């Protein structure tokens, strides 16, 4: 008997390939195809409804591959809508700030005014416009759906699939996983790498024993899992997910140990707890020494459910060799000082782990872009990466 954790593999693994030629995928022309056939057609995350509590509260965000600026707003009718941040008169950017709360948006160019539900409600010097039909000049809405506090958009005029169809079985498996949590960190960094490599870095746990030795040397694995295999790994049409093994013998650092003693343990300490109330999609195999899950939503999203916290990472390509990475972290609502202190410690530990990952992405990009690597050779523990390229090729090969 080997001293190894056996991974439970789930999902359709047909057409997964363990060799992925990469050089061509890093070319500018290839990126143009990805924009046209993947980013223009996929369901993409642009923010969360947690930030839009009041009627009229809005956030302005951008979608770099599509060069789009968007307004996400909770209207007077409580519904969340997503509009292009464009005035319908002559196309100037409508909102220049990042966020706010208002019943209406007014363009600074000629003061056209739109309600927070998108209707054109005010035109200056209106008699000078011939045949104006105000109801045809509302803000341009993008298809959006809110799933578990997360706002998705689809830029197609008529999306081929609803979000439910796109996500498939996992759509209903995360009910309430992020309820009662607030955003405790929001980091952005622009990295000189290709977006595929950036998202791939979070789609396997094989690297953590080597790359994360500075920041969290003993957070995963155990004597029964020395290679830190994933206890659970699943691939689907537009998603891949795995669970990570929290080391029961993790030795908290001095300050970490004290912070979590007065609050709740969080990353990189993982304690066993009663999992009955977890949504079925979180830790799907109910692995006892569970640390966290990684859920890759194709193309560019990684969600990390965890006890007491969760994260959303977005990997936005700006070009073939520049990626805008945005990391949002959420934790439970609290007004207890020692809780916030423990949360702050945990999110900083996570931030430093991220800085180890980021360094690798740039050097890997330089190597592969040189044309010197015939293909990447992937392990079974890296099936989420294999799945990423299967999903990509499925969309790239679709007739338009």
């Amino acid at each position: 008997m080997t001293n190894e954790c056996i991974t439970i593999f789930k999902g359709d693994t047909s057409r997964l390939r363990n060799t992925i030629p990469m050089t061509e995928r890093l070319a500018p022309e290839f990126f143009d195809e990805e924009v046209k056939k993947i980013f223009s057609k996929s369901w993409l995350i642009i923010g969360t409804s947690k930030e839009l509590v009041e009627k009229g509260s809005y956030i302005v965000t951008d979608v770099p591959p599509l060069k789009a600026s968007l307004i996400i707003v909770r209207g007077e009718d409580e519904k969340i809508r997503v509009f292009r941040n464009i005035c319908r008169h002559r196309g100037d950017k409508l909102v220049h700030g990042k966020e706010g709360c208002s019943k209406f948006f007014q363009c600074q160019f000629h003061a056209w005014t739109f309600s927070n539900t998108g209707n054109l409600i005010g035109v200056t010097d209106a008699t000078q416009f011939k045949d104006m039909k105000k109801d045809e000049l509302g803000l341009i809405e993008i298809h959006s759906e809110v799933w578990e506090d997360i706002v998705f958009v689809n830029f197609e005029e008529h999306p081929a699939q609803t979000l439910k169809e796109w996500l498939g079985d996992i759509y209903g498996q995360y009910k309430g996983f992020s309820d009662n949590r607030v955003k405790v960190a929001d980091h952005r960094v622009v990295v000189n790498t290709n977006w595929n490599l950036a998202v791939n870095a979070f789609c396997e746990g094989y690297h953590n024993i080597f790359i994360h030795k500075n920041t969290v040397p003993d957070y995963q694995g155990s004597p029964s899992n020395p290679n830190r295999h994933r206890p659970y790994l699943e691939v689907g049409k537009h998603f891949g997910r795995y669970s990570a093994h929290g080391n029961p013998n993790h030795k908290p650092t001095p300050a970490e140990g004290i912070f979590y003693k007065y609050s709740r343990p969080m990353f990189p300490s993982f304690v066993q707890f009663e999992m009955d109330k977890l949504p079925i999609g979180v830790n799907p195999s109910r692995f006892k020494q569970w640390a966290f899950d990684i859920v890759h939503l194709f193309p560019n999203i990684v969600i990390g459910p965890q006890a007491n916290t969760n994260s959303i990472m977005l990997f936005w390509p700006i070009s073939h060799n520049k990626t805008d990475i945005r990391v949002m972290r959420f934790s439970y609502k609290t007004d207890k000082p020692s809780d916030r202190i423990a949360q702050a410690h945990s999110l900083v530990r996570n931030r430093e782990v991220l800085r180890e990952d980021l360094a690798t992405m740039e050097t890997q990009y330089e190597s592969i872009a040189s044309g010197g690597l015939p293909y990447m050779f992937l392990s079974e523990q890296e099936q989420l990466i294999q799945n990423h390229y299967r999903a990509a090729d499925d969309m790239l090969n679709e007739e338009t």
Partner: protein
Amino acid sequence: MSNQILPSQFLDLQKFVDEWALDNEAARYQKLHSITLPQLKVFYEAMLSRIEIILPYLDQYTISTLPSDAKVLYNLTMTFAETAHPVDLNWTDVDFPDAYAWDQFEFRTVSVTG
């Protein structure tokens, strides 16, 4: 910042307040990367030796009702929570080798203060 005073039982930490009682993540991160490891260790050792008195003291209050002197202590402790790792992990510097450039991070709005 010079008029920030700690609760009387923590006046031994008052000498750190001007530099270390910072009220947001970006400022704390900037602070960590502007000092040497020996400088960090002085703050770390002082805070670690008092932290088990500090946390129960702060927890007499809620964050939204912290008196002004306790708020200073809270900010000081938040800075400790966010700068403890280099000493905790026995790094030989305030940063680790081959870390991604620290100054490339942009800190955006969060829902909680402090």
